[in-house]
């Protein structure tokens, strides 16, 4: 049986998930030059809040379709994440603007640890199941199958990328964001309220995280206080692969990473004559990442360098 189409589709779905999270990473990075290590945890909180909200809504026995229920709970998760993002920015990053580059990295790690443990205190140590209300009947195309929610993920990551690209490159706010990223003090001289711009970037990033959290937990059927770490790491790698700070790069990087992982896991064995197996899937993915960066030091779609001696 030819499994290649299915493998590519698997990669595409996984990649879209990475892309969805990578967008948030890259947006914040593009503005602040900051690796927001806590982004994965915001994704996790988004997932947790959605599931809680969903369970609550289900308990009320409203005459709503499952999709509507999920949409409503997403609408509850979004403000929570937006507030959380704003709070993180306000208290953990803003005071460190202009501090040595690594200082906010450390607070980001601190925020991650705090959020993981707070989540565990609130939602417990268990894995939380995503209520099984979404259609689970796979859709077939050719020899490949996928779930409806996975289709939504693919479409969503493309749509959100488009929307963000428009926002960042076609609007005044977007231009101000990029200006503030490069030189906050000069941006101020142009009349940009850097605090407001940065906060709005965090809010948008966190809304993206909420969406990603819902999609991830719906797809895998579960959420956990520590789910954000690995996802965040992969998404961050994807963002770098595509050229961090570049929105289209985040999506390209995400998709590529997903497909590489998928094909890696599926074919390393055959490629090496059975010598290596899928245990080297991540090695393979990182190797591709490294090779790409060695030849394109600022990622696939990394911006032209504006540095000159």
């Amino acid at each position, binding site marked *: 049986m030819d*499994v290649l189409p299915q*493998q590519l589709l698997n990669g595409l779905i996984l990649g879209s998930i990475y892309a969805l999270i990578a967008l948030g990473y890259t947006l914040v990075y593009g503005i602040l030059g900051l690796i927001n290590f806590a982004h994965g945890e915001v994704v996790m909180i988004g997932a947790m809040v959605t599931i809680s909200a969903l369970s609550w809504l289900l308990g009320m026995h409203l005459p709503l379709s499952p999709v509507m229920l999920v949409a409503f709970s997403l609408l509850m998760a979004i403000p929570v994440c937006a507030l959380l993002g704003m709070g993180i920015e306000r208290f953990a990053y803003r005071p460190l603007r202009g501090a040595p580059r690594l200082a906010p990295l450390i607070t980001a790690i601190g925020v991650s640890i705090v959020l993981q443990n707070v989540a565990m205190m609130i939602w417990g140590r268990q894995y939380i199941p995503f209520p099984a209300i979404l259609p689970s009947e796979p859709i077939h195309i050719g020899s490949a199958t996928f779930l409806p929610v996975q289709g939504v993920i693919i479409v969503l990551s493309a749509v959100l990328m488009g929307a963000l690209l428009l926002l960042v490159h076609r609007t005044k706010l977007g231009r101000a964001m990029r200006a503030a990223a490069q030189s906050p003090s000069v941006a101020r001289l142009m009349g940009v309220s850097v605090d407001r711009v940065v906060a709005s970037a965090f809010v948008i990033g966190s809304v993206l995280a909420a969406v990603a959290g819902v999609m991830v937990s719906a797809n895998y059927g579960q959420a956990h206080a520590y789910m954000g*770490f690995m996802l965040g790491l992969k998404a961050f790698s994807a963002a770098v692969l595509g050229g961090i700070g570049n929105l289209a790069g985040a999506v390209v990087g995400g998709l590529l990473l997903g497909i590489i992982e998928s094909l890696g896991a599926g074919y390393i064995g055959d490629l090496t004559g059975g010598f290596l197996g899928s245990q080297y899937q991540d090695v393979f993915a990182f190797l591709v990442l490294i090779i790409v960066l060695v030849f394109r030091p600022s990622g696939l779609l990394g911006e032209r360098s504006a540095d000159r001696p």
Partner: protein
Amino acid sequence: TPSTTPDGKRIIVIGHAAPLTGTQAHIGKDNENGVRLAIADLNAKGFKIGDAPVHFELDSQDDQADPRMATTVAQKFVDDGVQAVIGHLNSGTTMPASRVYNSAGIVEISPSATTPRYTQQGFKNAFRVMANDIQQGRVLGEFAVDDLGAKQIAIIDDRTAYGQGLADEFEKAAKAAGGKIIVREYTSDKASDFTAILTKIKGEKPDLLFFGGMDGQGAPMAKQMQALGLKTQLLGGDGIHTAEFMKLAAQAADGVVASLPGRPLETLANGPAFKQRFETQYGKIQLYAPYSYDAMMILAQAMQRAGSTEPAKVQQELAKTDYNGVTSRIRFDAKGDLAQGAITVYRAQDGQWQVLKTIESQ
């Protein structure tokens, strides 16, 4: 000199170590609760050692599933003068910690570490109330071929000491029983996407898929098998025999087969009562709570028989254990492993683990 309670009972501190934060925290806490319940039961009974009434106290520490933390915690227990340790949860932490307990001469009973090497180190103070990978792997391998009729077998393991150890032993036993391993794939204990390896496995058309790993991976794996239309029988070890697995995999759990060392709780004298008391106090049993409960019970009884908490004596008495616990009848072989432990195989049906068969392992 151990202290006493206000009403004159001698206080005996028991150490417990498991990951209480991180991804395995729910299982760690479950272990802790098992010991907690045992201690509550013992204290309520007015337990006596050498005619002196005693009061057990629990000192539970988080080893974060990190080998270094495990030795640190172990040293802390030694310094604090705990009388014995129930733990650790993982093989990777039990191994280095056991050295510390051994050189301090403290008794250690692991409720859940399954690596055979734990008891192969020649440490007289090391025991476990859980079947090791060889015992469980053999039962599973034979069961897969003989009872489930599998000929073409696929294996996935999560590359942890537990998952890999169990999968390796399963592979050996399945081969010995006449099965053929046609594909072996790997994942990690942090992964949640298995579509790539499942797709590959689907292409090989096995008639059984064995997974060596835990519920956090097993459940999405079962779901993804369903979504990919992979209708192969899924078989796993104790790692997926959890309430959590049922909840997470939902209807995809149906038909999954998993083993659990010991006899079904319901068939044992104290089983149902234990279950009921545990669940009213701590919620659903995750996985190893009954084992840590038993571990604490046999420890207390060994102390009672020894008439002392002196480690050397307790250790001698422990070796002679013969006790009907909530998991099975517990006896030890010369190494400290379960002697002739029973292993039960279950099938998931409608959210319940239903007993398929109980197998006596040698």
